[in-house]
């Protein structure tokens, strides 16, 4: 019989309210949200009240609760590593950390050591890596023995608020508006790092399925306010990554692979809505197959967590892969910054 797994959520902002709670509501037979923790007491109370959970402004009682098996980290990026280490030390079975996993290599090293020592299953909210249509078409691609010559990730998104309004009634305290800093090299590097760790990171696990190393970065262009255009190559495979947000148009989020005989095109649904899986097309010279499923990547991710925690299933994306994905992101940042500095 399936057990109901207890969940404690750290950070109750828009990702918790618009993504995780609506997703968990579709899996109520598998999960019970026991704690909602947020430093803002009004946010913690309001969000906890919606799911009949206990509100807290402190992480200690969440970690001390023996009925909480899974910790979800949706707090600011700078707290991710510290909270992962605390959850490991508290003996939790699994951790789902939102992207990015950490801020730097030192933090990544500490996480690697902690999850190994405590035997914790580590998941990152890279939902496209669990998208069932992508997984199906990726498996077909491998079975076909395709040789990938180009991997192209392209992200054009309107403001997150567009989708959040469509998925929930957000409760939060508004942050004060800040004046944008001057357009200097340091500012561009900071924004590029932020875009690579905040946006590109979504598809890095998918890119790495076909393109495991950053290789040589040939060019990078920082797109303000938030985006990038860059290209790299390693041996005979090229990778192109472009992104821009916020735009005043509908979203277009795609991953394209060019192989010897086939082309693979994946069009992802927005992550803030339960809009089903991506639509993935495997195109041959005289054929085309379309893959699409009812569940999106977050739903599959959560079901996977249940299978691992309650059923003892192996992690489909191992801790080592999750950590390597993050290293790839940092390698992209380092290579980009070096190119930008070389030009100045």
């Amino acid at each position, binding site marked *: 019989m399936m057990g109901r797994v207890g969940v404690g959520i750290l950070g109750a902002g828009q990702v918790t309210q618009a993504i995780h709670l609506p997703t968990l509501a579709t899996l109520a037979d598998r999960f019970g949200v026991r704690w909602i923790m947020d430093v803002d007491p009004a946010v913690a109370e309001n969000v906890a009240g919606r799911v009949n959970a206990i509100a807290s402004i402190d992480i200690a009682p969440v970690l001390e609760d023996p009925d909480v098996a899974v910790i979800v980290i949706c707090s600011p990026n700078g707290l991710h590593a510290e909270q992962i280490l605390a959850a490991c030390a508290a003996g939790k079975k699994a951790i789902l950390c939102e992207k990015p996993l950490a801020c730097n290599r030192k933090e990544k090293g500490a996480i690697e050591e902690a999850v190994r020592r405590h035997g914790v299953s580590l998941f990152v909210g890279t939902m496209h890596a669990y998208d069932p249509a992508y997984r199906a078409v990726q498996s077909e691609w491998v079975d076909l023995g395709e040789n990938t*010559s*180009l991997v*192209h990730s*392209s992200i*054009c998104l309107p403001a997150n608020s567009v989708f959040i309004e469509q998925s929930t009634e957000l409760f939060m305290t508004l942050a004060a508006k800040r004046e944008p800093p001057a357009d200097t090299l340091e500012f561009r590097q900071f924004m590029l790092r932020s875009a690579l760790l905040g946006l590109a990171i979504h598809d890095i696990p998918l890119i790495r399925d076909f393109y495991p190393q950053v290789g*040589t970065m*040939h*060019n990078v*262009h920082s*797109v*303000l306010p938030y*985006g990038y*255009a*860059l*290209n790299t*190559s390693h*041996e*005979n*495979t*090229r990778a*192109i990554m*472009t992104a*821009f947000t*916020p*735009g*005043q*148009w*509908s979203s*277009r989020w795609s991953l*394209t692979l*060019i192989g*010897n005989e086939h082309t693979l095109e994946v069009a992802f649904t927005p992550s803030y809505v339960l809009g089903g899986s991506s639509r993935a097309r495997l195109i041959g*010279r005289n054929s085309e197959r379309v893959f699409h499923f009812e569940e999106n990547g977050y739903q599959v991710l959560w079901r996977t967590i249940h299978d691992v925690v309650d059923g003892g299933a192996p992690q489909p994306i191992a801790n080592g892969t999750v950590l390597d994905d993050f290293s790839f992101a940092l390698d992209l940042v380092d290579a980009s910054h070096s190119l930008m500095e070389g*030009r100045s």
Partner: protein
Amino acid sequence: MKPPLKIVDMTGGDFRRTQDGAVAMLPLSLAWSDRRQGDIALVVGGRVDFAAVESSGVRLVVLADPWKTTLDELDRLSALELIVCPVLSFLPKLWHADQPSVEAPVFCESHACIAGDEIMEALIEQVAVLRAMGAEFRGPSSFARTTRGYTIQSGGNILSADLEKGPARLNAQAVSATMRLEVVIPGGASARPARIRRATPGAIAECKPRFEHSARLVWRAVLRQLEHTAPLPYGLHQLRDDIEYCQSFLH
């Protein structure tokens, strides 16, 4: 009824044969000439017979394989003060779309698959399409070559291609904060239409499909030019700019 305008084939028939007859798909108002004089000359880039062009009395030169044209040939064609219409495979399929370009794009990208193995052929086509979509080529540039293709980046513009790979196709996207323009163009030897989709605040508009070979679209443009109803959308000056730009990567 007016007699058809006469085309003098100065390619020795090679070009018409190698293009699967696509170039021979003339509108009724055009016809091949069996003499050395006429209204339009068909020449091939890289081996333009200037003496034949000058003595033919033509008013317009249709330039096949424009990617093979040398800068010297471009100078000499310019000196003749004739109108020149380069034959491109992908760009003509955008000509029927109204105002397809994006103002001040933040990035543009294009990927092409072509049957040939010449970088210049794919690159000229891509640059011409992206410029028509609003791309401005500036910023630090790079060129990366692999056995099967290339990636070129100039600022926020990224062009990649896979060579010797069919069916021929060109995808492109130009993105600004208020407009996103996407095109998917099947190769010139097919009459399949381009898909042209424009996303703006609150709307996505898709152009009506037009099932016509690129070559036929080129001949129509030539006809409109000679009948003074519309100037050529792409001529000698644009070709020179594009060739010079593309050569800057390859030399």
